[in-house]
Every structure is written in structure tokens, then in C-alpha cells.
């Protein structure tokens, strides 16, 4: 194994690294570009609607009063 790798050109390793990164980046970019607004808003709002209070006024219990209208515009 050492002999095989020692006989290979060094440039191949950074080249593989760059290709892998580009593939991952393109894949992720495609995923986010195709995401719907509705999906993003739902996902972005998860911390705010987790069954516990955000505001200190409601710190001791569930906070059903938090309505979806408070979500804001997730991108």
C-alpha cells in the first residue's frame, strides 16, 4: 500500500478533495434552492413552538398563546 501511494503523484489528493467539496456544495445548494417557503418557515419556527415559553412571562409552563403569526418570515 505504501509503495502504491508513494508512486502516485501528490496533486491527486488535493484534487480529489476539491472535487468532493464541489459535489457536496452543489448538492446542498440545489437542496436549499428547491426548498419551499412553507417548509422553511415550518423548520425555522421549531425552536419557538417547542411546548415551552419563550417570554419570561410564560416561563413556568407551556405557551399555547404563541401563535404562528409570530413566526416571522423565514427564508
Amino acid at each position, binding site marked *: *500500500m*505504501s*509503495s502504491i*501511494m*508513494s508512486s*502516485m503523484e*501528490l496533486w491527486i*489528493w*488535493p484534487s*480529489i*478533495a476539491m472535487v*468532493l*467539496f464541489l459535489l*457536496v*456544495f452543489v*448538492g*446542498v*445548494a*440545489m*437542496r*436549499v*434552492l*428547491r*426548498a419551499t417557503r412553507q*417548509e*422553511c*418557515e*415550518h*423548520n*425555522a*419556527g*421549531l*425552536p*419557538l*413552538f*417547542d*411546548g*415551552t*415559553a*419563550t*417570554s*419570561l412571562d410564560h*416561563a*413556568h*409552563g*407551556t405557551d399555547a398563546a404563541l401563535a404562528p403569526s*409570530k*413566526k*416571522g418570515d*423565514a*427564508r
Partner: protein
Amino acid sequence: MSHSPPATATHPVGEHGATPLESFKYDDAIVRKFVLATVLWGIVGMLVGLLIAVQLALPAANLGMEWTSFGRLRPLHTNAVIFAFAGNALFAAIYYSTQRLCKTRMFSDLLSNLHFWGWQAIIVSAALTLPLGITQGKEYAELEWPIDLAIAVVWLGFFGTNFFGTLAIRRERHMYVALWFYIATIVTVTMLHVFNSLAIPATWTKSYSVYAGVQDAFMQWWYGHNAVAFFLTTPFLGLMYYFLPKAAEKPVYSYRLSIVHFWSLVFIYIWAGPHHLHYTSLPAWASTLGMLFSVMLWMPSWGGMINGLLTLRGAWNRVAVDPILKFYVLGVTFYGMSTFEGPMLSIKSVNALSHYTDWTIAHVHSGALGWNGFMTFGMVYWLLPRLFQTNLWSKKLMSTHLWIGTIGLLLYVIPIYTGGITQGLMWRAFDATGRLAYPDFVETVTALMPFYWLRVIGGTLYFAGVLLLGLNTVMTWLNRAKVYEEPVVTAPALAPRYIDPPVPDSSLAGNLEVARAADSFFVSGWFHRVWERKPLKFTVLAIVAVVVASLLEIIPTFLISSNVPTIASVKPYTPLELAGREIYIAEGCYNCHSQMIRPIWAETKRYGEYSKPGEFVYDHPFQWGSRRIGPDLAREGGKQSHDWHVRHFENPRALNGNSIMPSYEHLLKQTLDFEGIQRRVDVMAMLGVPYGENVKNGKAVEAARVQAAQMADDLVKQGGYKDMGDKKVIALVAFLQRMGRDISQPADAPAAPAPTAGPVDQAGAKSLSANTQEAAR
């Protein structure tokens, strides 16, 4: 609670099967414990940091005790603030947010408590062993093998199992982005810790890294850099993505950006470690690769920063009056500044100046105190009233903490930036005749004194802020509810079946079927959308991202023979030198002295021939260091007499009034454990160090005694102390006298012995005590 895409008559999607509402309670008791531990260890860790900062300006502050010297306390400081303070903070964040994002209690209360108490036991073990000099000598991975094993069990066995078990029983189908960061944290830290810590034990308190020299350096900084990445960055980004929206009462600015942020960061960060080893003996290709990925890292890092700051859009009026949001704004801003500076420092030409200087220390502290510190403080202040179900004791004190911490932080980092750059410029300065402008290293130390004092003031202010947090925490805790209310939360269980929406039709026309299928599957992003609700697949992908990147750097570094050309004249350390090297490691000398001369003119001029990879093949572990509070020691062998070294260890300021090195007088009094040397030699032989029959089967002890006796005789001849032959100092001097000399020996020479006469003898056996300044470096 769970949202699903709308069902259609032809293809019903989403949750299938009626699930009743289930009632449950979150486990906030465990979060309370982690929050209290965060505050406690924050105070301890920063107090130790302040003490060693004072020691740099005032060496007498080491209290004259071996346990409180800089070399032993610095690892305690770094371990305490990273693994105790930041560690407990990230656990508090993860335990609080994971339950809520998954709408379930943690998988196992027992595992939660085993995790908490196990982690605290590890911290206490570190606090006891590091001052005793029990260390592996690898930065941020100093803890010895029994503690390393405990870390693996607690981290993965207790914490990891509990976390992934919680994901498995969650009631929210989609995994929020904070959970992705937590997943990456758990799997990557496990991998880093296990592979970097591989070692062969010699005793219960001593082990030797299975890697040596260049490979060990590579593994160590692959670990060290990614410990910053996956212990101090990704979990805190998870914290940011959860707690910042909570405090601002607004959703994260862009969920799309968070997806790009996550994958780009995880994929790129893991490659960047070699930038810690520019111009060293690491192969240049690996170093350059590390630099390139470090520069690329700037973009995802700033994507995260922008996402954090823009989450506050429309809420800046609240920032003006809410110290918690101010903490977050400052924390995220410092994240942005640090992640700009990091890639800049990774550029080779910048690194040539900054490496080994206090510039790196300033960079680290701007990130640690600004990003990790302020994000933690913001989270703790937000949690305190919620966890203890009472009002925060003093909002005014919280606000005071914010300002005193900010001023302290600036007063800390600005002088150290200035000092670091000054240091680097002085090291490389030449006069008009081509000679070093500051040939005496201590001149560059003296020049930093004003900056060291300013840092002490800044650090004191920052620490005072943490004390205010401690006071606020204690007082809030004292006013806690008599009985904690445990709200009952309801959520439907996930349906046993979930049908994904159909794969979107491809918009391609006139193409091959396979292209249309690929377009539907990949280009639509459908594949990732599915993974985001499948913990196992997501975890596997995160592992693949970090493993592939790691292997592409590690395998060539280990297997390409040209990376570490051997040098025929480089021989293993003698048993006595090996024992001396162990003392060097135990005293933490690597915290102040490098053993790596870079191929830079100013360095070869000051220290001698630049270091070659083949010189370190028997170094388990490597000791290249990362900082030069004192001079490089790679070519120290033969530069001074034994007597000079012994007296220098006894009282450095007797030889050089401006030295800030601690006294190691105890080494002149403590007896060397000769009998233990054999075990160490045997382990090194097991690791492949070619020790001959002369030092096997019990002969190592005899060989060490012979060499020690010879050196003790030489010491007396040089006008030095008598009866040093069985003292620790003689072994350490033997090691120092060997350093960097093999390369100049003939290939068939035996292991270079410690010189019998140093420069002082050659000059006519001058009395060292009478010529202190002349002998000083």
C-alpha cells in the same frame, strides 16, 4: 404538532396511522446541574488562566511550588476552560434544546446523570493529575490513558447513547438544524479523541503515543484544530440556532442558509488542521491543502455569523435594552472576527510571522472569550430564571457583567495582538550588517512585559465579570422555587409510517431516463429533505463527510514514504535521555519552548540548521510545541555545559535577570526513578523504536545509571554541584544535551552521548555564577 405536506387523494403523504396525544415532562434537573457546573468551572478555569497570565509578568507568582508552575498549570487552564467550562455549557445547551426540539424527555435519566457525574469526575481527575505532571504532552489532549478511556465511555457511551436515543423517540419528524450540529459534534469528537489518543501504557500514569514525529504532529493538530471546530464551534452554533431565536422571539433569519452553513462548515473544517504546522517538517502538500481549506472556511463561517445577526432583524430595539441579546450579538460578532482572522492566519506568509507568537494567543482568546464565553453567558442568563423558576437576582449585575466583560476582553486581546506582532517582528529583525537585531531571545521577552501587564488587567476585568455571573447564579439559586413546577407537555407520537411526498418530476425533456431520474432525485434536493428526518442516515452522512476528508489527508501522510525521509545518523534516545524527555513532558516545557526550527532565515540564523522530518522518527510523542515564550530548543544539545543547565534549572534569574522561566529547583532534589526506566524503554521498543539488546532485559537501568554517573562526574569537573548522579535534573540535562545533535553525527556513530564539555569549559571553565549575563541566552 408535526407538520406534513398536504395529502392528496392520489398520493397520501405524511404521518400515517392515528397517534394519540402523549403527555410528558422535560428533564430540566439535568440542565440545572450542567448550568451550575458551567459557572463553577468557568470561575476555576479562568482563575487558573489569570494566575498563569500573572506568572508571565511576574514569575514569582508561581508560588515557588512545582505544582503551580506555568508548564503544569497552562494545560490545566486550557482543559478547564475548554472541557469543563465550555463542555458543561454545551451539554446544558444540548440537554435543554434537544428535549424541546424533539418534543420528548431525554432517552434515559440514568444516562443523563451518569454523563453529568462522569464528566465532573473526569474534570476533577484532570485537575488532580495535570498539576502533578501526569500528562501525555499533547496540547488539549494531555490527560493520561485511564482518563482518556473514561472520556470515551462518558462521551459516547453515556452522552452519545442518550442523545441518539432521544432522537429515536422524538415526536417531531423534522430534525432542526441545531440537532445537525449536535450530531456532527458527537460523532466527530468521538473520532478525534479515539484516534489521537491511541497510546501504549507504560504505567497507570504514563503512556506513549503510538504515533511519532511528523505523523504524531499531524494527528495532534488534526485533533487540536478540530477540537476547536467540533467542541467549541459546532455545538455553540447549535446553541446559537436555538437560543438566539428563543431570546429574540424570532425564527432564524434563513433556514436555507443554515443548511448550506452546516454542510460547508462540517465538510471544510475537518481539512484545515495542517495550517497549524506551516513551515514545519510536515509535508508541504498537506500544509498547503490545510491552508486552502482554511481560506475556504471563511465563507461558511460568515454565513453562520450573518444568519445569527440577521435573526435580530426588526428586534434591534430589544437588543438595546436586553443584555442577553447583547451577549449574543457580541458573541456572534466575535465569532465573525475570529473566523476571519483564522483563515488569514492560515495563509503561509502571514503564519510565518504569527506562528509561535502571542498573536495566536490573542486570536484564540478573542474566539474563546468572545464567542464561547459570551454565548455561554447569554444562554446561562436566559436559562437561570427558567430553570430556577424565579426572577434573575439582579439584571443590573448582568448588565455590569456584559460591559466589564467586554472591556476586559478588549483590554486582553488588543495588547496581546500588539505584543504578538511585536514579538514576531523582533524575532525576524536584522540590522544593516545582516545580523539579528535582537540576538538575545530574552530581549523579545522583556519587550512584551507592558503587554503582559495590560493583559493581566484585561483578564482580571473579564474574570470579575464571571464572578458577577457566579454571584447572580448563587443568589438566583437561593431564591429558587421551593418545589420546581414540572409542566406537562403534550404532543402526538410520530406515526409508525411516514410516506414521503413523491419525487418531483424532472423538468428535463429529451434526455436519458437516468438524467431525468437524477434531476428529480438530486437536483430537486428531495434526497436531503428525506435525510433531515432520518437520524441514522444523517449521522452516517456526517461521519462520511468528516472521515473521507480525514482519510484523504491522513493516509497519504502516513503511507507516502517520501513524507518522512529517514536519516541514518538519527538514533533512539538512550534510556537516561528517555527518562529526561519524560521529565520535559511532565514539566510542560512544550508550553513555552518549541522544538521545530522552520526553514526561515531569521530562525536558522538564531537557532541553527532547520528541522528535518527524519529527526523525529523516535519522538513518541512529538514535542514541536506551538509557542515560544522561551527560545526554540531543537538544537540545544551541546550549546551549554551541564553546569549551566543545572544552575539554570535551579534559578533561571541567577543566570539571566530578565528570564521569566520558573525555577525547577525540585529537580535538583528529587531522585530519579531508575527502576522505572526499563518499562519505558520496553514500550518504546514495542512501538518500533530500534533499541538493541544492550538496553533490553533489564539492561536499560544499568545503562542509565552509567550515563548518569558519567554526567555527574562531568558536572563536577565543570565546577558544578556534587551528588547529582541520581537526581532528576541529570536525566533532563542528558535529554537537552542530546537535542538536535544526531543530524551532525556520522551515520555509523553510536547514539550521540551528552557532551562532556560545554562552551563554558572550552572557554576556560569560567565560573557561571560570576558570569551570569554572559552565559544567558
